[in-house]
């Protein structure tokens, strides 16, 4: 493709993405303030703070999103926001955007970073900031997918300041003989490109008109059950809640898929083995139809934890209206009634009196 064609395609893509996504861009619920936390390696992270309605009923809650996402996963819009829901029940809610996502700082010419940066730098910085702002001795953490992996890694390496936690669809191994696992060794030499950024936002937004139009939509199929997540909600998430992914992050996470190894990028620290040392109470949550952090993958983490711990699966068999997929736990239309109260109940049972 010559230079002129490249420019033309780029302009068309940019126009398509802007035009396609705009109708679905929605503001988050009012009543938040943005706070910044600075990591030791110099990244400025964005935290959206929601003060509790009325007197606090427990520790502040730090909400952490998954891969290729941002804090809007936890705080999509008024009426569909885990952060707003916690704040409405007396829990000060802090939604974190990990580095390179949301309003947090991008890499911008600095050294590439892997998954390790999230648990080694971002989580400690965010937890410290919340404790400093609120005066709380400890914070509770509710973490989705890769956010839960970061929490596991942080706690397994002696991380402090967490009172109790919930992980939602967080895998600790993914090598269950699926097609992707078997294809990965073939892809590994060429994908992802080392030191780069994998575009997620632009392709997702270009295809915006087609999202949710078919139950075979591969993107939706992967991350949600359409019985729980209507097309409108899904498009809002795509427009507001996605982020590009760093190659080194994807490479490190790919070790879960190819080798079943939940370890540091250099391979020297086995997080999964060290999870036996964790003594923070953790509720491990899985969705019956989660194909990313599947029950298989999440249960592996549950087994690895030292405890106290609890396991909860959400599906029709346990009384929900539909089987839960990966994102359904956060943005499912019935999650507010079917899932979230259990999270708060667990945190309450393992909380300090206020």
């Amino acid at each position, binding site marked *: 493709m010559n230079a002129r064609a490249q420019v033309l395609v780029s302009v068309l893509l940019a126009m398509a993405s802007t035009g396609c996504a705009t109708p679905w861009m929605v503001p988050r619920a009012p009543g938040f303030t943005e706070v910044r936390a600075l990591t030791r390696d110099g990244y400025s992270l964005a935290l959206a703070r929601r003060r509790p309605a009325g007197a606090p009923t427990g520790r502040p809650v730090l909400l952490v999103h998954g891969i290729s996402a941002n804090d809007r996963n936890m705080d999509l819009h008024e009426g569909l926001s885990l952060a707003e829901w916690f704040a409405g029940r007396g829990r000060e809610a802090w939604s974190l955007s990990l580095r390179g996502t949301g309003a947090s700082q991008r890499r911008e010419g600095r050294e590439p970073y892997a998954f390790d940066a999230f648990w080694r730098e971002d989580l400690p910085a965010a937890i410290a900031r919340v404790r400093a702002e609120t005066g709380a001795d400890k914070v509770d953490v509710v973490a989705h997918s890769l956010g839960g992996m970061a929490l596991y890694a942080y706690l397994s390496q002696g991380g402090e300041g967490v009172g109790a936690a919930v992980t939602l669809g967080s895998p600790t191994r993914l090598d269950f003989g699926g097609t992707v696992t078997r294809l990965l060794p073939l892809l590994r030499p060429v994908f992802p490109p080392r030191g780069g950024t994998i575009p997620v936002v632009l392709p997702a937004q270009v295809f915006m008109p087609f999202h949710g139009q078919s139950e075979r939509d591969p993107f939706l199929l992967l991350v949600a059950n359409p019985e729980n997540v209507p097309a409108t909600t899904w498009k809002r998430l795509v427009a507001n809640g996605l982020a590009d992914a760093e190659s080194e992050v994807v490479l490190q996470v790919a070790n879960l898929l190819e080798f079943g190894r939940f370890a540091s990028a250099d391979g020297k620290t086995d997080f999964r083995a060290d999870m036996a040392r964790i003594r923070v109470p953790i509720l491990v949550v899985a969705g019956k139809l989660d194909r990313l952090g599947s029950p*298989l993958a999440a249960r592996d983490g549950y*087994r690895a934890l030292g405890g106290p711990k609890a396991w909860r*699966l959400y599906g029709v*068999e346990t009384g929900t209206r539909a089987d839960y997929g990966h994102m359904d736990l956060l943005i499912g239309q019935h999650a507010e009634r079917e899932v979230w109260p259990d999270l708060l109940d667990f945190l309450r049972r393992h909380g300090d009196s206020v």
Partner: protein
Amino acid sequence: MIRLLVLLCLAAAFNGAHGAPRALVPLSPAVPSGRGPAVLLVPGLGFGREIYDFHGQGLAPHLASRGWDVWVFEPAPGANFAELVGRELPAAVGAVREVRGGPVVMVVQGHGGALALAAAGHELSGQVAGIVAFNTPLEWELPNPVLGGVLERGGDLGSLAGGEGRAELQLLYAHGATLRPDVAAHFSAEGLRDLGRPLAREWLEALQRGAPVLPGPSFRERIARVDVPVLQVLALRDVVAHPEYASALRERAPRARVTVRELDRFQGCAEDYTHLSVLLGGHAPKDVFPHVVAWLESLR
């Protein structure tokens, strides 16, 4: 002819617990290969042999038509866990070996399959060449209140099929599944078996306790002793025997050479398989059975 005579003798002598008959049905291959071990298919708790051979279709005829010497076993009705591992399975394996010689490959499913794995680690040690395990839980937990309720009321699965329990059976075995029309219409009446109160109670108590109680080595010790190749098939939407309770096999049986195959729509399957559809689903011959055939071929 000699083979037929041996089989007739076997059938005559083949009685189960308390004199109740077991069933051991050989399926002659369309094209006898003469190679590879015999394959013994053992239904999960509450299923009859129809789970593998329903009106001439299913995994058993699928394998037989590809040259495998296939035997479908049904334990004596009401046999408890100790009888299953200590008498029923050894009797079936012994009977097949009488005819074929050499170790057999077992195909097993669900909690009954987990008991078969446990037997492979003790009573059947040295007699098994490999195991195909469909969602066989190593962590025994009550998966949901629905199964708990059915077992609490005596586990009369066959009787439930015709009554108010139909919705429960649908949820347990086929929620979200694509079944063949004949299976959807008739399997619950023909392929399910009443457990009987003692077995239902034993199953429920094992789920509440965290493991079945077996004679001799513990369930966990037995699993740790399994040292044969295992193909573990994990169906995402199984509501009776959750795949996540089965997935610890690689750690629990470190000497077994475990190959795992996760089956769901994202892995290219036509559906997210359930306890029933993984064996009798409309797409199982295309999505599921080739994994079994390929793995069996690797044993030859």
